[in-house]
Structures are given as structure tokens and as C-alpha cells.
């Protein structure tokens, strides 16, 4: 090899955009000589995935640092301008109703902490992948996730000043029973090696189910006068599309690298589809019950975003690699007309111990549900609410007594029914080393049986309460340990948020009315 520096001074061939990007980002790696390569990247073998050529990773976005910073800074400037304006103008008074914020309470308690977790483990990928292309993509996502966590906090910070349920979200996340659903889900992913995490979060969560998980909150915001959250949603969109593209690139990369990877990846898709899908149970009830102004039903959302776009689109493409649609997907499809009703009915009864409030649907709302779920709602669920209406008229709003049994895997209370049998409660049991573990579905049982030594470790909130690890034996003890305050939990009608809302709307109406009266006088 000869170095001929003189030659290039005359006739230079400038780099193309692509070549320039690669020169800036790709050549940075080197083969270590002073430590062993598997010492430098020690976590790449144990999951069984084989990568032969890290350089085959195609960067979906050719972002250099300068363009990334410039673009993101401009987006944040616009977003924070909206947040400031909304706060200054008491924009929260233009929401459809204060009860809408229950959706956002679930969001800050259950989703925002996951963004932080994603920041951490994408940093892990940015450390442990042996190729600079995927490492840089992971690092971008790691700091994007900080952005999402913070813009969510800053978006909801203004509501927190006026409404209940949002004030203690980090401690809620670590302690409150229903939040162990998203927490255990994400910690399941955080405890994985780099490749499974990439499939779990990069592919299953960010790609396969993102439209079911994330979009309903943002659409709900736009339908209910929540301008800041909607703006946040739009602002996060271009990041998300980068993350989705990363997830898709990741799966293709793994499948193309070695044929033996296909079976491992299929197992992860099977696991993480069901794991993520179970988290959407909280979203399903939010869509159908918590939004004063409805966007679409869970069933419609599931059909459009999952059956049509994923099963119909994505998995047809993945068939090329020998990937099949996820195991247990049929069970999820059978459940689409039941899920939200079963979950909300449970949350309704247990909201005395939650960081949000619930209320019985109005007649108009019941009619909407009947229409949206013609095959199931009138048959199975409307009678429950009609009966509850009578209870309420007699002053006896129903709250559950006792504590629900939780699924060992997804940690949702065992409220689901067997596929195709809406009146048969699903109760699955597995035995591991002499102990019995309960799961809520075929999917969760399959996941448990695959890795019992992992799922036996779960910190199940109800077990913990019963063992006396959650502040004490009585409900008030536990609520205090949760850090909940008066007004956070229970029934919405008559709650602190409801009373304030009525009073503030009254003042606003009086303010608007006043000048007219004067003008008329």
C-alpha cells in the first residue's frame, strides 16, 4: 500500500452525501489488540444470535450530529412555546371534561417511566453492539427517550398543578398495583440481553404495537382539547418513525445474518407480542371508557392498527424470512370485543386504590358502546352497568372488597375469559419446583412455562400487600404507602377534580356572561 498525498491535491473527487455520512460514522471502529474482542463485547453470544457482518447494518437515517441537534432543537422550541402559551392562558379549562385527565394520569404513571427505562437500555445497546452503525442509532434513541420522558413530564406538569393523580408518579410506578403491569413488562425487557431487548422494545413495542399503545393517547388528546399532549404527540412522531424504522431494520438485520437466528427471533416475537399486547389492556379501557369524547373503539383500533396494518402488511413481508404471525394472535383477535369492558369493570371496582378515578358510563356512553360492540356489549356488559346504575341511585356505588389475584406474568388481575367463551373465566396453572403459579391466558402461561425461573421472581403487588410489605394491613395504610392523596382515587363524580372543574367552569361562564349582561343593561 502506497500513500500518495500529492495526487489528491489536484483533482479531488468530493464525497457523495452517503459516502460522507459513512466516512463520518462508520470507520470509527477498530479491531482491539490489547484486550480480547469478546471482553470488549461480552454480551453478544449468550442469547444464541449469530452476527457475521456488523457492517451489513443499513442506517435507516443518515443523521449526523449537527443535523440531529439542529432539527431536534427546532422541534423543542415549537413544542415548549405551545406548552407555555397553554399554561399562561389556563388552557386546561378548554378540555372536554376533567375526567379526560384520567387517561393522562395513567399515561404519566405508567408510560413516562418506561421512556426513562428505554433511555437506559438503549444506552446498553449503544455500549454493547459490536458495530458503530447500530450503536449510533441506539444512542440517538437513548437520548430521544430522555426527550420523550421530559416532554411528557413538562406537558403534564401544568395539569398537575390543578388536578389530582399525577403528583407522585415515580413512587406510584414503583409501588401501585396496576402499574406493575407496565413496570414488570418493561423490566422483563431490561433484564434481557441486547438482541432480545431490540426485538422486545425496538420491534414489538415500538413497531408492532406502537399504534395501539401510543397513538390512542395522542388521538384522545386531540379529541378532548388537550393541545399540549397532542402537540407533544406530533413532536414525538418524527422520533418515533425513526425508532420504528430502527426496529424494522433490526429484525431484518438479525434474520439476514444467520438462518439459525430465525427460530430464536420467532420465539421472541411470540413472547413479546403477547407481553406487549397485555399492556394494551390498559389502553383499551382508556379508549372506550376514559375519554369523554371518543376517538374510535378499541375494536376498531385493533382491527385497523393491528389486524390490517401488521398482520395484513408487516407479517406478509416477514414471511419472506420464514417468520410467522405471533403465537396466540388468534386469542387476541377473539378478545377484541371483550377486552376493554372486562378491564374497565375491574378498574371501576378497584379505583379506590388507584391514582385515577372511575365512574359509571352515562346512558349516552352506554349507547355508544352498544353500537361499537353490537355482538357483546348488550349481551354481557350493559346489564352490569344497568344494575350498577340502580345501585348508584340507591346510594350504593360498587367497590370491590378484597384484593384481586394477579397473573404471574402480565400482572393484570385474573379477569380475562377463555378464548371464544366470554363467560368462562380463564385460570391457568403451572407448577414449577413444587409451587403453583397462576396465569390469565394461554399466552401468559406459555410465556411462564418458557422461562419459569424468570417469572417466579415477579414482585406481585397483591402478594406483597398480603405479606405486609406495603405499609400495613389496611387499605388506608396501603394508600398512604402508595403516596396517594385525598382526591386521587375513587369515584369521579363528587371527587376533588370534579368539584373544582364545575366551580371553574362556573367562574368561566360567569366571566363570559358578565360583559354581555352589562352590554344589555
Amino acid at each position, binding site marked *: 500500500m502506497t500513500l500518495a498525498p500529492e495526487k*489528491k491535491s489536484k483533482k*479531488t473527487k468530493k464525497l457523495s452525501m452517503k459516502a460522507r455520512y459513512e*466516512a*463520518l*460514522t462508520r*470507520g*470509527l*471502529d*477498530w479491531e482491539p*489488540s*490489547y484486550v480480547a474482542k469478546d471482553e*470488549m463485547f461480552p*454480551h453478544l453470544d449468550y442469547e444464541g444470535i449469530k452476527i457475521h457482518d456488523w457492517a451489513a447494518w443499513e442506517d435507516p437515517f443518515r443523521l*449526523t450530529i*449537527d443535523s440531529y*441537534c*439542529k432539527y*431536534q*432543537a427546532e422541534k423543542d422550541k415549537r413544542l415548549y412555546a405551545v406548552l407555555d402559551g397553554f399554561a*399562561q392562558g389556563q388552557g386546561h*379549562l378548554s378540555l372536554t371534561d376533567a375526567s379526560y385527565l384520567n387517561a393522562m394520569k395513567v399515561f404519566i404513571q405508567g408510560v413516562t*417511566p418506561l421512556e*426513562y427505562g428505554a*433511555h*437506559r437500555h438503549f*444506552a446498553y445497546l*449503544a*455500549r454493547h453492539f459490536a458495530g458503530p452503525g447500530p450503536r449510533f442509532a441506539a*444512542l*440517538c434513541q*437513548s*437520548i430521544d427517550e*430522555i*426527550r420523550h*420522558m*421530559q*416532554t411528557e413530564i*413538562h406537558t403534564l*406538569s401544568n395539569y*398537575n398543578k390543578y388536578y*389530582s393523580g399525577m*403528583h*407522585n*408518579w*415515580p413512587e406510584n410506578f*414503583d*409501588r401501585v398495583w396496576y402499574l406493575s403491569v407496565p*413496570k*414488570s413488562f418493561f*423490566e422483563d425487557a431490561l*433484564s434481557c*440481553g441486547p438482541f432480545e431487548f431490540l426485538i422486545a422494545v425496538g420491534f414489538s413495542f415500538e413497531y408492532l404495537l406502537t399504534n395501539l399503545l401510543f397513538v390512542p393517547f395522542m388521538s384522545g388528546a386531540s379529541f378532548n382539547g388537550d393541545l399540549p399532549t397532542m402537540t407533544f404527540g406530533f413532536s414525538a412522531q418524527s422520533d418515533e418513525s425513526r425508532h420504528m424504522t430502527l426496529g424494522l431494520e433490526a429484525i431484518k438485520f438479525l434474520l439476514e445474518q444467520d438462518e439459525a437466528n430465525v427460530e430464536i427471533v420467532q420465539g421472541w416475537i411470540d413472547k413479546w407480542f403477547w407481553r406487549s399486547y397485555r399492556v394494551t389492556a390498559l389502553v383499551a379501557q382508556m379508549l372506550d371508557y376514559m375519554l369523554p369524547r371518543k376517538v374510535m373503539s378499541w375494536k376498531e383500533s385493533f382491527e385497523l392498527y393491528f389486524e390490517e396494518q401488521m398482520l395484513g402488511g408487516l407479517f406478509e413481508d416477514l414471511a419472506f424470512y420464514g417468520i410467522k404471525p405471533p403465537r396466540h394472535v388468534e386469542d387476541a383477535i377473539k378478545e377484541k370485543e371483550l377486552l376493554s369492558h372486562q378491564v374497565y369493570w375491574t378498574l371501576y371496582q378497584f379505583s379506590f386504590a388507584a391514582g385515577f378515578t372511575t365512574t359509571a358510563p352515562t346512558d349516552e356512553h352506554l349507547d355508544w358502546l352498544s353500537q361499537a360492540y353490537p355482538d357483546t356489549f348488550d349481551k354481557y356488559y350493559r346489564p352490569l352497568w344497568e344494575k350498577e346504575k340502580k345501585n348508584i341511585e340507591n346510594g350504593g356505588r360498587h367497590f370491590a372488597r378484597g384484593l384481586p389475584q394477579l397473573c404471574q406474568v402480565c400482572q393484570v388481575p385474573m379477569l380475562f375469559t377463555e378464548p371464544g367463551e366470554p363467560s368462562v373465566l380463564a385460570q391457568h396453572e403451572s407448577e414449577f419446583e413444587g409451587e403453583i403459579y397462576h396465569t390469565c391466558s394461554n399466552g401468559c402461561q406459555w410465556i411462564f412455562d418458557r422461562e419459569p425461573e*424468570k417469572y417466579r*421472581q415477579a414482585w406481585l403487588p397483591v402478594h*406483597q400487600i398480603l405479606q405486609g410489605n406495603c405499609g400495613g394491613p389496611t387499605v388506608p395504610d396501603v394508600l398512604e404507602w402508595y403516596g396517594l392523596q385525598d382526591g386521587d382515587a375513587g369515584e369521579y363524580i363528587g371527587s*376533588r377534580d370534579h368539584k373544582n372543574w364545575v366551580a*371553574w367552569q362556573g*367562574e*368561566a361562564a360567569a*366571566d363570559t356572561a358578565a360583559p354581555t349582561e352589562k352590554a344589555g343593561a
Partner: protein
Amino acid sequence: MQYELKTQVIEPQRHTFTHIAKRYGDKPASRYLEGTIDVQAKEHFHYRPTWDPTREIFDDSYSIFRLTDAYSFLDPRQFYYAPYVTARAAHHEAFATSLKYIEDRGLLERLSDGWKGVLTELVIPLRHLESAGQLILCNMARFGWGASITQAAAYSGFDRVGNAQVLSRAGIALGGGTADLLTEAKQHWMDDAALQPLRKFAEETIVEADWGVALLQLDAVDHLLYDLLYQHLDDEAVNNGAPAYSLISQHMSSWFDDNRKWIDALYKAWRADPELGETNAAMLAEHGGAAVDAALAAVTPFAARIDELLGAEVNAVDRITTKAAEVRAAYTGEQA
């Protein structure tokens, strides 16, 4: 004269989140605090990591350096994401302006052979060292305890990619718009005797599992190299007609000054910890001192090569030796 808009006045129920109010009282809190304090989960982790079942998913035992309260360390720059990317957008724009001026005026071509040699053989290959910094800081962003630490580490790791790109862009410009000098720089990094101790140091720091110790090692080598290349040689460049070097150098040194702020604040928090401060100070003396000694050994052949290229009167070896004594004294509390 001001005009008064009439708006509905509503008394807030609270002024900030409960976890912020517990520390600072119920008053409006900055976006940095609301976006940082206590946001990391800290208890009831469900599963042990498959890659290290002896620890929790987030665990403060990934480093010997610990804080009783993780949030006694705060980034003095108050960088949450928005101000961070805004500051970096300005930083890279300023560099682009300098580079354009350098290119328009043909300043790189006008450098003497000595200065060209310094850039080609020694400075541009450091893009690989920046890349090592990225790995080291990403490890810290994953395994640190508390969001104030992991956030600062992630941004600093991202900065390292930015630094590598600044050096690469200078290399592309010096190579007449081609990547030839980057290829050449990699060969220097892989083969040159002047760079091997540094590369060895980088590789050993990448595999250091304790993120606190790794930070000290990276920081020690930064102290010596950034001072030598972007302070000392910057002066030399100004005095000896190498404006292109100085115009690039200013951006590296302004980054270094900015980056020091969070690292120095972290050391300060380690020392000031009411319970662990004494232990931390002892370990800073031990591991900080050792890191400086190792870094000095690693950078000495590099500095000696500068003296060869630019002339012995540059005194590069003397400069790093003096600097090392100064940094060492800061760790150990002994006189330099």
C-alpha cells in the same frame, strides 16, 4: 406603560410534583428538576438481569463510587434534553462557520508540514479515541444510579460522537474533500508507535466495568490531551502562523470546558456526601491518581511525537507532565 390582559385566575392545588416538593418545598420548579429528580425507578425490581443475576436492573453497586442521595449530584448546566440539543446545535453551527472560513481561505493547505503532520498523524486519529469515549459514557448511562447521572453521561456520550465528527470533518477538509486522510488516520491509530499506548489505554478503559473508575480514566486522558492539543498547541498555532489549527481547536476546547462542569460537579458531590464522602475521597485519590499516572504514560509518546514534528521548543512532553502533576494533586490533595 403596560397593558393588563384579563385572564381567569385559578388557584393551583400544588406548584410542583410531590417528589420535587419533598426536596425543595411546594414552589414552582425548573424544567430541569421536574425532568430529572427521582425519575429512575428505585425499588421492587421484578427480575434479575440475565447478563448479571447478582445485581438488580438498576443498581448502585455498578461502581465503587456511590452517593447516599443520587440527586445530590445535579448538572450545573441544568441540561435537560431541550437546552442540551439547543446548545449543541449552536456549537456545531459555529464549527461549520469556522470550517467554511478555513476552506474558503485555503488555510489548511497553507499549514506547514509540521502542522499537517500533527493533524494527520495525531489529531485526526483521535476520532477513534472519541469513539472509545462514546462507549465508556454509554456504559455509564446504562449502569449509573439516578437520572441526573445517566442523563449527563448520555449527553456526554453523544458529544463524543459529535467530537469524532468534528475531527472527521477537519480530516475530510484537509484531505481535499475526500475520506483518504480518515483512512490514513486509522492506520496511524492502529500502527504508529506514538499512538499505541493511547490505544491500549482506550481499550482497557472500554472494558473497565466500573463506570466511575472508567470515567476517571477517560477524564485523566482528556485532561492531558485537551490541554496539550487545544490550549498549548492552540497558543503555538497562533504564535506560529497556523490559524487553521487554532480555528478548529477553539471548538474542541470550548466543548472540554463545558464538559468539565458536570464531571467536576460529580466529583464534588462524591466528596461532599455526608456518609460516603470520606470513602469516595479516598477512592478518588487512589483511582484518580492511578488514572493520571496511566494516562501520562499513555500520552507521553504522543507528546514526544509532537515535539518531533513541531520542534523541541514546543515542549509538549513537559506540558503534559506538568498538567498531570496538577490533576493528580487535585485528586490526592497532595502538593504538585
